[in-house]
């Protein structure tokens, strides 16, 4: 199969200016600025085939967003080559833009003070989407994402989950070949995350849309991607099948409970108490032994609680394990 995204020896450097402090300092800044060069992406290579869903994961500031910004034509690379659909994004930015969809989890790509419907209408004009195609797409997206509930609401008034649904639908209105998702589930609750994942899966399967997804959330990757590319400190650490690193994803979760009262015995089945201070208890458990819902309902039956949260394993943990076990690039 032919590659739709090709990245070859790609690097991006940023100049970071150091600011001198104080009044005199800011005056001096005007005339001479000291800078350091930060390499955000360092000679990376990968190819993505049409129709793949690839998880592009890594710790904070690893270079994920910078890569996405180069592939979408926002940033010009310092060196190296890249092609999306055979086009060089920063040189043929407009042509590339016509064939891709982009969603940033951190902020909307819609018009902040316009209702969702107006934003969609504008996009219909911008991408010159035929009315028939526009209506059909809208109907289809509505089925899964239930946009009609907030279609007349200004984007600025949407909840994070609604906004993300609107953003993803908007990015797909013009039937792009590639969808770039930068942290699409950040800050969402479990139900909202699941809805978005289901939609991404459907779009990928039914329309063969290639998806490149950056995320912090390992469950996004587990549920969506067959292949992962792991980037750390601007370099690719692993590129291969999810199954190859699945064993590295810790199965253990951490459940943190704040009890409303002091109980003599707070032990629970299939869990290990990792930490106990006053009324806060950390439990370690594995979802293979006991389901989260069973665990929570048992707690609610027996105790009064103030608060409860579950910590998922973090990518940093996998990165650490990869370094430790030296499975470097094993999947290739």
């Amino acid at each position, binding site marked *: 199969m032919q590659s739709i995204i090709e990245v070859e020896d790609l690097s991006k450097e*940023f100049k970071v200016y150091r600011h001198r402090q104080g009044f005199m300092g800011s005056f001096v800044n005007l005339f001479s600025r000291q800078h350091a060069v930060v390499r*955000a992406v360092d000679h990376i290579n990968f190819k993505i085939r049409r129709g793949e869903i690839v998880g592009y994961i890594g710790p904070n*500031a690893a*270079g994920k*967003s*910078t890569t996405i*910004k180069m592939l*979408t*034509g*926002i*940033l*010009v690379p310092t060196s190296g080559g890249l092609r999306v659909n055979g086009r060089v994004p*920063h040189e043929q*930015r*407009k*042509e590339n*833009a*016509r064939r*891709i969809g*982009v969603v*940033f989890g*951190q*902020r909307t*790509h819609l*018009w902040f*003070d*316009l209702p969702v419907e*107006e934003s969609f209408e*504008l996009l219909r*004009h*911008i*991408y*010159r989407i035929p009315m028939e195609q526009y209506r059909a797409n809208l109907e289809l997206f509505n089925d899964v994402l239930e946009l009609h509930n907030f279609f007349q609401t200004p984007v600025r008034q949407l909840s994070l989950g609604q906004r993300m649904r609107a953003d993803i639908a908007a990015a797909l209105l013009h039937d792009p070949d590639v969808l770039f998702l930068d942290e699409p589930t950040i800050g969402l609750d479990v139900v909202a995350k699941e809805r978005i994942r289901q939609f991404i899966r459907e779009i990928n399967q039914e329309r063969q849309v290639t998806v490149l997804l950056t995320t912090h959330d390992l469950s996004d990757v587990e549920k969506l991607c067959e292949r992962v590319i792991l980037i750390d400190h601007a370099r690719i650490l692993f590129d291969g099948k999810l199954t190859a690193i699945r064993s590295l994803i810790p199965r253990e979760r951490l459940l943190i409970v704040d009890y409303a009262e002091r109980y003599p015995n707070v032990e629970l089945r299939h869990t290990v108490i990792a930490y106990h201070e006053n009324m806060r208890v950390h439990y370690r458990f594995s979802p293979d032994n006991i389901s989260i819902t069973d665990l929570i309902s048992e707690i609610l039956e027996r105790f009064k609680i103030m608060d409860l949260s579950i910590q998922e394993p973090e990518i940093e943990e996998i990165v650490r394990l990869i370094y430790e076990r030296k499975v470097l690039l094993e999947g290739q």
Partner: protein
Amino acid sequence: MHALSLYLHFVRVRIQSQMEYRFSFLMDTFSHFCVTFLDFTSVALLFARFHTLKHWTLWEVAFLYGMIGISFALAEMIGRGIDVFPRLVVRGEFDNMLIRPLGTFYQVLAYQFQLRRLGRTSQALLVFCIASSHLGIVWTPVKLLFLIAAIIGGICFFMGLFVIGATICFWTVQSIEVLNIFTYGGTEAGQYPMSIYRYWFRHFFTFVVPLAFVNYFPALSLLGKADPNGSPMILSQIGPAIGPAFLSLTLVFWRFGVKHYQSTGH
């Protein structure tokens, strides 16, 4: 054609959202009209005392004042997006423009449309009309076309200045207040005939920042007046073409800036 109809679509949406607060919009427009009139009153008072300014009468100066006022107000109305460009960079909204299949400058223009500048535009237009009737100018079709070209030239000139300011943001992220010397200072300076200024100042606003070409020289031609400094008449005739030329030059700088855009939060 698509670009134009899409632009109008953007403008319509923008105007609609400004009309949501109708009262505030009307008050703003009205106060703009009044404040700028006060501004002109000070010019008029000056003439009440001195009658002429180096061979220029009040109505001739009012003619200049009206012309540059119309250009500047329209430039601010259309080019407001370029003016607020630092905000687009800081909020990351410029990223959104780069992922669309449209030109960046075009999208920045379409980002805002400040209808309330109609207040200033109509004030300047009123002063201009009164002045031209006092001066007894006969508006032949050729003269009218020349005037429109000069106004468009002026709009292009001011937008060019905005573009320079916006482009600098690619490196500094903040807006550069110094440029207001040329925009606001330019309109102030352009309200008076260039011939009253000193040599270096005149030449700066002719050859470095070509303000004289979009206002003073075309006005000379419309008024049928010779430049007291003896500059050739050809400068008046090519005047309106300088604005667009200046704008296209600044757009080359703009494109260079876009290539150096660093985005925020990598």
